[in-house]
């Protein structure tokens, strides 16, 4: 059956189904190749703006008493430089690479949720644009990229500058979380047959851990941003000491995100290194299992380091010792990866090329950043150099070494894949030396400037401090580096259009992404390979030709359908055929209404913002409704027929919801942590004005949540036994109970003290809003599944399993919330 089409006919048939629209309709594209490129291009644009801002700063600091920039402008510039580089360049660029590469490396045709990827890109673009437009209007945030309170509070920053940061960054972070959900589901479920976890490309392991870290690490900052915006806009005093708040809570929430963020940036880049080093050494990566182990260990350990940014705020000695120990320990798994790379190079035959040059630069620069990191893990040294240029030098060695050099190597390495043309080796080498020398000239002296006592974030300094020569060297280095980047970009732009055509697999790599034509067709591969080895192309050099000839899975195009395989998580055994959506406008519309929501919040139009939130919800419901797939079984290969993905347990949709709930749970845990932190350490607690929640109300709410947790399971059981009426009955009951819960929580919230009076009242109001929101969404979701049960085109098993996850999470978080509301604020410890 699979041999009935010629390769060319198969290509045309697949291209018809998978191709993205052209012209202005390309805005509706959802294909992962397109979205990956868009992420990369937008991130590059933000990088260029951030780089120009860096040059402005260095121009200002090149000499003492400089009047090139004034204090306010300098504050805006260093805030925007950090914000652009950390939030709008680093993570989106890496997500762009992951979006583009992962399906190709995994032997799949697209990501698990193409529309979510498109929505993520639009959110990122709109969120970033809010910040850029504000900067052009002179309203850029000016409190540093960490937005410390009380400096960022309304008392010291009464304009909308801080609001722009809080709204814009939260919006962009939604994009990152959506991307993470997409990546987790894709890596676990959308792979080529036979690609068990033991054969997973090492980059996929890195991205799996990174995505998990984004899910757990971003919500604390999202929560912090919401709380700070509530304080600034509505006067709810979470960080105001006079009314029971504590500014240190912001630092905890920020660095709970901020330190994992460093590793969220480093790990994907290290994954690229682990992918490229074996290619240039022409041998498999040494210690694959140890590298995977160390990546997971780094992922966890990075969440135990955040307080080392706060050693000077008054943490007890024992607490600091825990974080100091963890900060030093994280060097061990990082070193394991280093030794694996060195051992791979040592035991292989190294081919030098421009990517390898950048990889060597990475190894040199990142080691220095890592060693100064261990120095900063030591409390006495940390206290000495806190907030000096030593820290600036350290973080740039870590981030430039850990991100920029691998990224530049990756650009050269995968450029032939993206454009089908080879970059120039000569221009690439010249660019490398400019960047390498310029970088070290800029940041090596900065260690000394810091040790000589120069604080960071000062816009000028006087002559007799002895910092002039070092600052001049740093500024010169920054401009040399900028010349290097300009040459690099010129190389990429010129040669991606006019360079020599790239041969198939120009670097002789072993990964599946090189088994396809370059630039890749919209469907990636004509048939999905049976993977037998960790480096499939090294084991079977003719694999690409076999795939193009349709000798593997899903070789028979199914007109009007975008199909790829879904596999068992551990073994990679095919379990279902995934039907993916084609181009559509819903992601753009949903992102526009989300943007409308955030802009209305920014301009304090709260009633209108609620309208936009409702509109977004309606669009999401339309979105999911379109995901109906046929229940028929599909021929995946010769005699093998597989069900559609909605018919099997553990479909990618289920994994998406599970991943989203990890992020939701991290947000809730951060909220509970925040409440407890204030309860224990903020002055003015417990509050005298608190009225405990009545017992009867608490019991009723808990009973409602318990029913909710149990009802979806009962509905699922009834549906499984084809007792349709009973299943619908349970769903209808779930809708009713959810609405009753929502009403009960609303009554409770109305009876609470004024949230502007004390942080306890504000915290309890936020808790009740969280519970109410979840109960409300539960009713909408249950009503949706109930309505869908009348749709005969597809079963509701997948919908029920997703609903069950949501309801059980809502039940658990709701009961914890009720317990907190009952016992928390008024009880004296």
């Amino acid at each position, binding site marked *: 059956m699979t041999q009935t089409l010629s390769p060319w006919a198969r290509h045309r048939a697949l291209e018809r189904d998978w191709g993205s629209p052209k012209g202005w309709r390309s805005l509706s594209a959802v294909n992962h190749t397109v979205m990956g490129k868009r992420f990369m291009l937008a991130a590059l644009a933000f990088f260029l703006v951030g780089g120009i801002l860096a040059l402005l700063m260095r121009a200002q600091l090149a000499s003492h008493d400089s009047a090139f920039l004034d204090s306010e402008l300098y504050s805006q510039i260093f805030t925007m430089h950090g914000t652009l580089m950390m939030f709008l360049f680093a993570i989106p660029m890496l997500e762009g690479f992951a979006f583009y590469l992962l399906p190709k490396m995994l032997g799949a045709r697209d990501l698990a949720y193409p529309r979510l990827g498109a929505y993520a890109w639009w959110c990122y673009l709109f969120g970033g644009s809010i910040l850029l437009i504000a900067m052009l209007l002179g309203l850029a945030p000016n409190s540093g990229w960490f937005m410390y309170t009380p400096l960022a509070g309304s008392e010291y920053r009464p304009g909308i500058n801080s609001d722009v940061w809080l709204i814009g960054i939260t919006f962009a972070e939604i994009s990152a979380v959506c991307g993470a959900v997409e990546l987790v589901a894709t890596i*676990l479920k959308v792979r080529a047959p*036979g690609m*068990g*976890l*033991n*054969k997973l490309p090492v980059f996929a392991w890195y991205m799996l851990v990174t995505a998990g870290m984004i899910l757990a690490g971003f919500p604390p900052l999202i929560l912090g941003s919401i709380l700070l915006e509530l304080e600034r806009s509505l006067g709810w005093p979470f960080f105001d000491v006079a009314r029971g708040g504590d500014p240190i809570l912001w630092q905890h929430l920020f660095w709970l995100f901020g330190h994992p963020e460093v590793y969220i940036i480093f790990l994907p880049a290290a994954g690229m290194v682990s992918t490229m080093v074996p290619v240039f050494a022409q041998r498999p990566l040494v210690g694959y*299992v*140890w590298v*995977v*182990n160390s990546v*997971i*260990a780094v*992922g*966890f*350990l990075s*969440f*135990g380091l955040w*307080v080392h940014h706060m050693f000077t705020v008054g943490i*007890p*000695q*024992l*607490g600091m*010792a*825990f*974080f*100091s*120990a*963890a900060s030093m*320990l994280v060097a061990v*798994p990082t070193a394991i990866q280093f030794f694996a790379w060195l051992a791979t190079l040592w035991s292989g035959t190294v081919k030098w090329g421009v990517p390898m040059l950048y990889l060597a630069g990475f190894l040199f620069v990142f080691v220095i950043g890592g060693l100064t990191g261990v120095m900063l893990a030591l409390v006495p040294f940390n206290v000495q150099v806190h907030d000096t240029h030593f820290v600036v030098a350290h973080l740039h060695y870590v981030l430039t070494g850990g991100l920029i050099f691998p990224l530049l190597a990756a650009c050269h390495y995968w450029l032939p894949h993206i454009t089908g043309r080879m970059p120039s080796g000569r221009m690439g080498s010249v660019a490398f030396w400019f960047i390498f020398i310029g970088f070290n000239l800029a940041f090596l002296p900065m260690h000394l400037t810091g040790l000589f006592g120069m604080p960071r974030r000062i816009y000028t300094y006087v002559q007799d401090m002895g910092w002039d020569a070092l600052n001049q060297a740093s500024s010169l280095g920054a401009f040399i580096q900028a010349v290097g980047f300009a040459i690099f970009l010129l190389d990429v732009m010129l040669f991606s259009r006019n360079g020599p055509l790239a041969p198939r697999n120009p670097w002789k790599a072993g990964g599946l992404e090189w088994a396809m034509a370059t630039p890749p067709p919209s469907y990636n591969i004509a048939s999905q390979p049976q993977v037998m080895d960790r480096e499939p192309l090294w084991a079977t050099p003719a694999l690409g030709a076999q795939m193009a000839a349709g000798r593997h899975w899903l070789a028979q195009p199914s007109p009007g359908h975008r199909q790829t395989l879904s596999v*068992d*998580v*551990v*073994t*990679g*055994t*095919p*379990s*279902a055929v995934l039907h993916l959506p084609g181009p559509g406008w819903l992601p753009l519309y949903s992102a526009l209404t989300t943007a409308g929501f955030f802009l209305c919040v920014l301009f304090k139009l709260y009633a209108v913002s609620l309208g936009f939130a409702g509109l977004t919800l309606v669009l999401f419901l339309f979105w999911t409704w379109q995901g109906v797939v046929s229940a028929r*079984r599909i021929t*995946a290969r010769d*005699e*093998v*027929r*597989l*069900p559609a993905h909605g*018919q*099997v*347990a*553990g479909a990618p949709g*289920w994994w998406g919801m599970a991943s989203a709930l990890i992020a939701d749970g991290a947000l809730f845990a951060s909220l509970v942590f925040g409440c407890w932190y204030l309860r*224990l*350490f903020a002055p003015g607690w417990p509050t005298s004005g608190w009225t405990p929640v009545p017992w009867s109300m608490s019991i009723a709410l808990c009973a409602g949540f318990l029913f909710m947790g149990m009802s979806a*399971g009962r509905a*699922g059981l009834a549906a*499984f036994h084809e007792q349709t009426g009973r299943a619908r009955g349970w769903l209808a009951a779930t809708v009713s109970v959810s609405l009753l819960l929502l009403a009960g929580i609303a009554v409770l919230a109305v009876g609470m003290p004024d949230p502007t009076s004390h942080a306890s009242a504000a915290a309890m109001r936020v808790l009740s809003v969280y519970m109410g929101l979840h109960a409300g969404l539960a009713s909408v979701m249950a009503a949706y599944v109930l309505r869908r049960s009348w749709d005969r085109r597809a079963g509701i*098993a997948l919908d029920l*399993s997703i609903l069950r996850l949501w309801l059980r999470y809502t039940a658990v978080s709701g009961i914890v919330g009720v317990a907190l509301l009952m016992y928390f604020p008024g009880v*004296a*410890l």
Partner: protein
Amino acid sequence: MIDGRGDRGWVSWWRDAGPLLRVFAAFGVWSLCFVSLYGLQAVLCLDAFALSPAAGKASLVIVWLAYLALLLLMLLRSLGALRKRQSRRYNSLLLDEAAHRFLRRLAVIMDAAALTVAAMTGLPVVFIKTCA
């Protein structure tokens, strides 16, 4: 013919993802250990508890040792699972078994690493005074 139908509910979910989650479990326990120690050393220093430094230290050491014992148990179990499975050599020829064996090896390394990390991060409890 491959049968793509699966069971519903937690059983099929655990069959699908359980071995992978087992790999992460040890560092999950380390995270709890870390949060418990950090949280407790802060809470025990509050005036309301009024614990003597010796009692505070004793409490923290007990918590730390309990986590170490749990991690040691996990390591012993994962080692046992590895040895038991590896003795069944015929299984290693199967494609599926190779993936499971990889995860079992990974679990042993992760358990050992988490135990070491928990021992190191908790060590300050022994040497540094609580509430200083």
